[in-house]
């Protein structure tokens, strides 16, 4: 059963069409990576899927109970410390204070944050630590579905790999579905069950590629080789690194 289905979705900003005829679904426990050249409308599509933007055409069907999101920038509350930020989504879920504290501690451990980090404000945390808090905030609400909007693009390579591994393991353990928007093909090859390529003009899904095995079983080298093959040999990815931001 699909947790998320986008049916014939199209969107236009001030009369200019940025997305058209998008149709795909994400099954339970499946991570789908959505890739495409910079400025092709990936983030807009993700926000439509998450219900932050109403599409001008088509609809997004959400069959899950609760979702969460990890944004490109951490979007933490500056006035709340690490623990309070992780608890933000839980506060709206009617969890008792004691259970909330336990859940925060458990998810913080999962993403490698210790007690000292939890009592710090976002300004006192490094970029990687802030993004860990953002991931923990998403996992803490025990969602059925998580949206990732280029979550690791501002981090250095080593940290990005660590957080990718962490996200893959956490998603597999929780068995949740995820839509992972990225422009990094290696990242998509590492984390996803399926890679969807958005057409460069936003007119539909241009195609789909499936890396071997489940994401948890993959190693970095295999993912890198798969990505290299896609980038150099696959015509579907020929324009993936073209950048035309003026279009947006």
């Amino acid at each position, binding site marked *: 059963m699909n947790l998320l289905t986008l049916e014939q979705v199209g969107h236009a900003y001030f009369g200019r069409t940025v997305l058209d005829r998008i149709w795909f679904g994400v099954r339970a426990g499946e991570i789908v990576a959505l890739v495409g050249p910079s400025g092709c409308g990936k983030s807009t599509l993700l926000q439509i899927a*998450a219900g932050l933007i109403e599409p001008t055409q088509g609809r997004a069907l959400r069959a899950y109970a609760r979702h969460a999101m990890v944004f490109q920038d951490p979007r933490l509350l500056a006035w*709340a410390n690490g623990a309070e930020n992780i608890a933000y989504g839980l506060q709206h879920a009617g969890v008792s204070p004691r259970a909330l504290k336990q859940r925060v501690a458990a998810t913080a451990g999962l993403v490698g944050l210790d007690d000292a980090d939890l009592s710090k404000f976002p300004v006192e945390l490094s970029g990687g630590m802030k993004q860990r808090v953002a991931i923990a*905030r998403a996992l803490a609400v025990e969602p059925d579905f998580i949206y990732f909007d280029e979550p690791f693009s501002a981090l250095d390579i080593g940290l990005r790999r660590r957080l990718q591994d962490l996200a893959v393991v956490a998603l597999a353990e929780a068995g949740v579905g995820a839509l992972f928007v990225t422009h990094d093909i290696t990242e998509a090859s590492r984390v996803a069950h399926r890679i969807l390529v958005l057409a460069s003009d936003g007119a539909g899904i241009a195609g789909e590629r499936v890396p071997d095995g489940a994401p948890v079983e993959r190693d970095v080298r295999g993912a890198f080789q798969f990505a290299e093959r896609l980038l150099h040999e696959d015509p579907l990815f020929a324009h993936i690194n073209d950048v035309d931001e003026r279009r947006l």
Partner: protein
Amino acid sequence: MAIFIWREVAAHGADRIGRLGAFVWSAWIGLAALSLIAALWQWGHEVFGDFVLPAPLSVLAETWTLLQAPESWSIAAATGLRALVGLGLALLMGGGAGFVAGYSPAIMRLTRPLVSVLLGVPPIAWIVVVMIWFGSSDMTVVVTVVAAAAPLLFLGVAEGTATRDRGIDDMARVFGADILRRVFGVGLRQASAAFFPVLIMASGTAFKVAVMSELLTNAGGVGGALADARATLDVSAALAWILVSLSLLFVVEYGLIHPVRSELERWRIAAQPWGVKR
């Protein structure tokens, strides 16, 4: 459960006492700055003589004798109350309208010119008009204070709300925060960054305008006492009353505004480098 709550309260309590201690300790620096002003004042006194500028110590002594009399306290309380009521009303009206305008660009565009007009009218002009409307009463002083302070608060709150990070709002929506939680939990909190500097400015304005309005309308209070001092050419008494009205402002600013601000903006203090923090 009880032990759990007690542990939480104890941890927060210790933290709060620590911060309160640091706040009280920082009074030494304030005292140093005040001593500098006193030194300049003393120099002026030695140059110009006792009649033009009495010595700071003799003014302090004068203030002390003033405060021995119970009626002085009621005079100061009258001014303090008028300024505070005016400030409170300005906060409700100016701040409230500013918050709404920060969320609605249409209201912002409509109210901006209105605020410019209100800011441009000198308080003295308000005093004249309001005195004709209400006579020499509390109302005259309060209305003048509101007219002077509300536009400032409007601008501060509107600017703070309009420049909020909308990404945080989206985040709150994704995590299931309803409109009330987003407006009051996220929007208001972000507006507070621009709000507190303006509130400090507005409270200063409130006391200044209250005293001025009292002096010109014969409505009693510190302004009335200043008018009496002027009539008898008693510079000492005038300066003593100025000290009293300054103390009122200090009580409001350091007893109310700064503690609330430092409680709400602990994260900003955490971000400060060590030399700035202490």
